[in-house]
């Protein structure tokens, strides 16, 4: 037996209101299932369960305001001898997670690389044999597309495929629904890309509480370093300012893990490695985000090589699948022909995006003296569920600091 208590979603959370129970006594639950929706000062947050078992009893009613740590339900563990207080080693691993199975659920863990399959939440509350009933069928293509568009296919009870399997069409319909479009016509690839972008950004704007910061960063040191670097180098070896900016961002991030990671199913997972998503606009319209893997380890020359290679391949359609999927944070670079600054939309499940405006000259005050400075405006949009403005400001300051001292980037 284990007590479920009002969870703490943040250090500043004292109480929470049970907005809605998602389970009833007798319901079988699995680690990761959502059991309640909690109303906090920061809005509704899903509460998940960290063990497999059966909900024995609800100890609090909907609408009740309860202190953090107070019991709200009882859970009979599926595996009672197992320590009830043992914390899961990997609090969140929606992909690649091996579910801890009840004896009956032996099929569910047979493919450790596939997302875990939820129990069906239909009226059949105690399926004695849920080996089949519990499995939601979804085709690999649909699964892939859902991951790409960050769509939670588990919301679908059944699909339109063979034996009720969720197929690609169902995912596209869901994507469409989230953009308010009812019908999904045969689309050419640019239309499809538009639709995919639409689905992602709509979802992002709907689900992610964005906050925005921006900072003007003086570039004269960086530009001087760059001019010296490029002096006498052949065209092939010449470096663009972007490479320095990307390096600065990548090298700043490891100190600020709350901006580099994924927010999935109500939980944030910081990532150790920085896979910098490079938003590349395509000639002829559209946008691709390609991951620069292990970006924190790259020096500016290596970064430049990556950028060159990736932009070329993105525009010719030669990106690798891993590049399309792995980004832990995105950088959107409007370039030297863009505008001064931009407030960007986060690509879920990422939690931050950095936008770079164009390089420009402004009057700049140093020691009460006005001089002309080259600057760039660096903007950060971040997920308030994961980080706060203060941390964001520190991140921007760190980027600034690195750019004032380009030798730190090598």
């Amino acid at each position, binding site marked *: 037996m284990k007590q479920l208590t009002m969870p703490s979603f943040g250090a500043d959370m004292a109480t929470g209101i049970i907005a809605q129970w998602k389970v009833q006594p007798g319901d079988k639950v699995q680690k990761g299932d959502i059991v309640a929706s909690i109303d906090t000062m920061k809005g509704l947050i899903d509460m998940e369960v960290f063990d497999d078992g059966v909900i024995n009893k609800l100890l609090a009613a909907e609408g009740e305001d309860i202190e953090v740590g107070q019991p709200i339900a009882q859970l009979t563990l599926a595996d009672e001898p197992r320590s009830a207080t043992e914390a899961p080693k990997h609090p969140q691993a929606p992909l690649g997670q091996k579910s801890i199975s009840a004896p009956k659920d032996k099929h569910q863990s047979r493919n450790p690389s596939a997302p875990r399959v939820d129990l069906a939440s239909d009226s059949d509350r105690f399926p004695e044999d849920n080996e089949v009933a519990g499995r939601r069928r979804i*085709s690999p*293509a649909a699964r892939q597309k859902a991951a790409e568009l960050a769509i939670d296919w588990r919301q679908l009870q059944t699909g339109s495929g063979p034996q009720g399997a969720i*197929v*690609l069409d169902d995912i596209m319909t869901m994507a469409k629904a989230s953009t308010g479009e009812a019908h999904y016509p045969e689309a050419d690839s640019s239309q499809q890309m538009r639709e995919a972008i639409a689905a992602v950004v709509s979802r992002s704007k709907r689900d992610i509480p964005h906050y925005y910061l921006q900072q003007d960063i003086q570039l004269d040191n960086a530009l001087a370093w760059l001019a010296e670097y490029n002096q006498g180098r052949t065209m092939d070896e010449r470096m663009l300012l972007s490479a320095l900016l990307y390096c600065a961002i990548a090298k700043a991030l490891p100190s600020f893990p709350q901006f580099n990671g994924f927010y999935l199913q109500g939980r944030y997972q910081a990532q150790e490695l920085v896979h910098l998503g490079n938003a590349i606009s395509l000639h002829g319209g559209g946008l691709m985000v390609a991951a620069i893997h292990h970006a924190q380890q790259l020096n500016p020359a290596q970064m430049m090589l990556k950028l060159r290679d990736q932009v070329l391949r993105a525009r010719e359609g030669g990106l690798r699948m891993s590049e399309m999927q792995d980004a832990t944070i995105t950088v959107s670079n409007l370039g030297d022909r863009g505008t001064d600054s931009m407030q960007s939309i986060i690509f879920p499940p990422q939690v931050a995006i950095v936008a770079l405006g164009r390089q420009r000259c402004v009057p700049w005050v140093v020691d009460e003296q006005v001089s002309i400075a080259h600057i760039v405006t660096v903007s950060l949009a971040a997920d308030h569920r994961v980080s706060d403005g203060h941390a964001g400001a520190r991140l921007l300051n760190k980027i600034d600091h690195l750019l004032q001292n380009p030798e730190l980037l090598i």
Partner: protein
Amino acid sequence: MKENTLSYRDAVHEAIAEAMRQDERVFLMGEDVGNYGGCYAVSKGLSAEFGPQRIMDTPLSESGFVGAGIGAAMGGMRPIVEIMTVNFSLLALDQIVNNAATLRHMSGGQIGVPLVIRMATGSGKQLAAQHSHSLENWYAHVPGIKVLAPATIADARYMLAMALADPDPVVLFEHVMLYNETAALPTPADCPDMHKAVVRKSGTQLSLITYGGSLGKALEAATLLQEQGLSVEVLDLRCLRPLDTASIFASVDKTKRLLVVDEGWRTGSLAAEICAAVAEHCFWSLDAPPQRICSVEVPIPYPRHLELAATPQVQQIVDLVLGLLGKQAGTK
């Protein structure tokens, strides 16, 4: 036969005659290819043009004359060996598998076997359990030989020349139900490189992959499905070894669904190989489980209705496609 049309039988006949006119090294040997005119009348009249020295009747010694064909190929000739049916070819399996397929590799590349073996295959003529089987995949299993299944008049007409030009042994399967098929007079352009699979009908929702005698059934099913507004692609494998996997994967990656139609028995079939390869390489593209329609696992029986029941049929294909597209019925 109408003018400007050609039957499959005459296409093979023409292909042999042309090869023999163009290359003195080419000769045809097999049981009853000469005076009798061939079991399926493919070589009728060739003896008159080329004489018994080049249209050689052999005794009923499959192992002997297939081996002799291999030896003659090693000795500089370009033999075409005809085996009446695939069932009889089992008497020559030793020569095909132990010699033709191995000699080049086993000799460290010294000895080549530029040989073509033609044989009839498949059911449909009520020839019962020793003359009706489709054992193409037994041969497609063996590295060192190439396996072709011309399913169109154009392929029947022009694939043989490619097989003869190949430096390695090529086993060529002619489905018995195709010999009477006719089509407009083909040109060499209608027959791409023998190693390539060909999209016979383009579609977007499902790939019907097939070869040989099942191609017609697949195309018919695709047409019926089109009338219901469904877009099915039909890919004709043509070459069963080496498989043109690039074309297979391209088609399935596009349509995201696969149904293989194969007249061979299901267990260990070529269809199984294709499904496995697709599962390995196209897994994340798949929007439905790969499926196959094969022959029922019994010896092919004599009565018409049982013969039909034992082998893949058009309606079966249509039903399965509908199921895979979530239209009605279900998958097996």
